[in-house]
């Protein structure tokens, strides 16, 4: 299990994701963290991941924000069920519509172990 995570506040989320790894993946899941869009490199490499989690607010150093990354993923024909939005914003769906983007799975912050399990379709 490989998960690409575009997030610049990983330290806040790390414990919950590690707990998910311990309980459901027997510590076999690999979380690849990218604080900026450019640190990911070639977007075609997204096929190497089972899931992609995208925070809408990335570091100011990032060339692209979360919306731009989502656009790239769609252009790359990444299956929609592989993509998750991580966000602390409200009205994200309205914002997606404004930017002509489809609806995505959304993991709302603050996250809990239960909300992560629910998003990935995992049971206790």
């Amino acid at each position, binding site marked *: 299990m490989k998960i690409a995570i575009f997030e610049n506040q990983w330290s806040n989320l790390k*414990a919950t994701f590690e707990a998910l790894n311990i309980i459901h993946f027997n510590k076999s899941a690999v979380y690849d963290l990218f604080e900026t869009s450019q640190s990911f490199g070639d977007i075609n490499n997204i096929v190497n991941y089972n899931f992609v989690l995208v925070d809408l607010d990335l570091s100011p150093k990032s060339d692209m924000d979360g919306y731009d990354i989502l656009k790239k993923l769609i252009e790359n024909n990444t299956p929609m069920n592989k993509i998750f939005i991580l966000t602390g914003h409200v009205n994200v769906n309205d914002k997606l519509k404004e930017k002509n983007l489809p609806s995505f799975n959304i993991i*709302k912050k603050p*996250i809990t172990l239960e909300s992560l399990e629910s998003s990935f379709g995992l049971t206790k």
Partner: protein
Amino acid sequence: MPVLKYVDISIKKIYSVLFRIILVIYSILILVRNENIFPTYYYVFGIILYIIIFKLLYFKKGIFSYLRLLNDYLFFVLILWDKPINDFFNLCLLFLPLIFSTNHSTSEKRASFSIGLFIITVITLFVLNGFAFEWTYLIAVFVIMLINLLTYLRTYVLRIYNDLHDSIDVFYQNDFNIFSNNKILNSILTKIKNDKKVLKFFLVPDNILVFKIKNEELRLANSAKFISTFKIEDEKTLISNIKESKIITNTAIIIDDKKYEKTISTLIENGKTSYVFLITAETKIFCILYIAKLLDPLFSKVIKVLEVEERLHDEKNRYLDNIKSKTQFVLSTIQAVHFLNNALTPITSYFSLTKRYDELTDEGMRNDILKLIESERVRARASLSSILERFDLIMERSLNPYIVQGMFVFSLFKIFANVRKVWDYNDMNKDWFLSKWDKEILSKTLSTNIDSFEYIIEEILLNIKAHSTGEYQVLFDYEDLPLIIFKNRIKSFDKNKTNLLRIIKNFNNDDSSEMDKRKSYGLTFIKQFLVQLNMNYEAKLESDFFILVLKFNLIKNEDSNIREPMVQS
């Protein structure tokens, strides 16, 4: 029509009627006192005809005033015919119009009328005196005429003076529109120019400019006619001289590339603030002191209007500052929600893991989760502290976002004048206020909210002042559309370059809310207002200069979507 003038005309109308009643009664007394050559019915018919003709000519201007005079004297000839003219009682009838002349005729008495009255009185005396001149009577009539002429001059000057002062009353009654006090100056200019009787011999003005003396510089406060640029070669000397002598003549000034050398400048002081009124003239100015004495009280009133507007401007700025702080609060609240959702994660995570720890039975998993719980507890405590700090910040303020209210049609004259007003208000260097807009461009119109536009300019200039090395300029330019280009050399450029590039990137982004998450409040508000005012904009860096370009979307001639446009130039 101003109230005083209306009252004056009404009184003159009543005087005119009363005067004729007195004439008729006095004439009847003469007829009773003397032997009459004609039968009585001649005189009755004469009185009736006189009254009818007077009624027909009543209060008509121009040639009719002379016909009225002729009617009076023909009536006198009828009454006094073949009667002793050296009789004081009889002679008085002829002198009554001379004595009453300032009141008994039209609203605007002319000097020529006094002379006409003199001539007709002399002719009547000549006729009634058996076609012979009586020099004693002539001297008396001449003296009365001279007195009448002097009275005429005095009342004329008073009337001009009142007319000019009425400009201010009329402005308050009819044209009162904040920040359009140029209408007063324009009205004064027009009235002086239109005077074809007395003032034209002393002064033919072309424009009236008002300057405020600020930091020993002349700041254009307003002008009767629109001007783009002005240059006074030795401004400092003018200021120092006028402070000493109050009135200066023939200071050369270049206005929109045209040089004026015939000028009169007067100093008007209002408390600690000093203003210079400069009148440019088309011809040589005479009787400088008389002109200055006539206009100084008027200019003092104009200053009051200017200062009222300045105070309103200050109030508006205070209001906008208040709005700005509230808008900042809305933006910071949105940011705070985002912050809280992130900051709460270690806390929700801590409780979520604790709960799961209790439910797990696998000892290995429990040990691993316990390690996570311990590290998360530290993080949760730190998060809680920062969350409480942010809450305190939110609770300190109230909420009320600002939205542009109403768009109206304005000419670029108004835009230009507003930028210059704010530029001067902020004590920006006037030598760096440059314009390529000609009258054709200035007369073009756009739909905007002038208060919001002024707020944008205030914000831009405040930002320029805050971040400038002292080298900046504004240029009114034209490409496919009119532009205003602000240029500012940024202090500590190398240190700020990365931040500036980020701000510029976000500012130029089409999404108006895109800047909300960034800490660049000045430009955030500017952008929000620009979007609402339907203006195009671009920020960029050229070397160490920050460039901000504002582009105006004009109203096209064929655009018929504007309902009842209210052009305010």
